């Protein structure tokens, strides 16, 4: 009967895009904000 695709860790009812927080084909959780590399202003790179 195949798999229950709702158990693969994707919010299929989300009104937002899924690809922008898609972490990996092997992980059943989306990216958290701290997992997503972002182009922040250069001044923010304090380190």
């Amino acid at each position, binding site marked *: 009967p195949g798999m229950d695709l709702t158990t693969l860790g994707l919010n299929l009812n989300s009104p937002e895009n899924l690809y922008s927080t898609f972490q990996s084909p092997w992980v059943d959780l989306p990216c958290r*904000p*701290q997992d997503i*590399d972002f182009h*922040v202003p250069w001044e923010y790179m304090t380190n």
Partner: protein
Amino acid sequence: PLGPVPLGKDNIFQLVMSDSGFVHLPHPSDSERLRHHLPRNPCPTPSYYPQTPPPHADSVEFFQRLSTETLFFIFYYMEGTKAQYLAAKALKKQSWRFHTKYMMWFQRHEEPKTINEDYEQGTYIYFDYEKWGQRKKEGFTFEYRYLE
């Protein structure tokens, strides 16, 4: 319904190679910049701990509900990430402003005593990332060329 087909030599080789690839699967951090301060550190937790972030945890509205100290922590320790960006946005909504020379966040404690084209001067609260705490500074000149 069409029945199985014996695998050819190429297919057997592909199975052997994918087996070995499976042993060294890519890790999510392989596609992320190095996280110097907070690298991923998987730690088993009891199953009754929340296993997923709360809903809409990646929105500005959620970040605005976090304490300012949490926002500062995210800003300084998760640099180059969406979390830092959202923390900065939330801080700005609470009237904090980033000083690019001192690399600190400032907030007017009172209406500045002087404001002109180039600077404003007065009493400010700022967050000292080295001492990790908020401080008050009287008579501080905030030059606009250092305003982010």
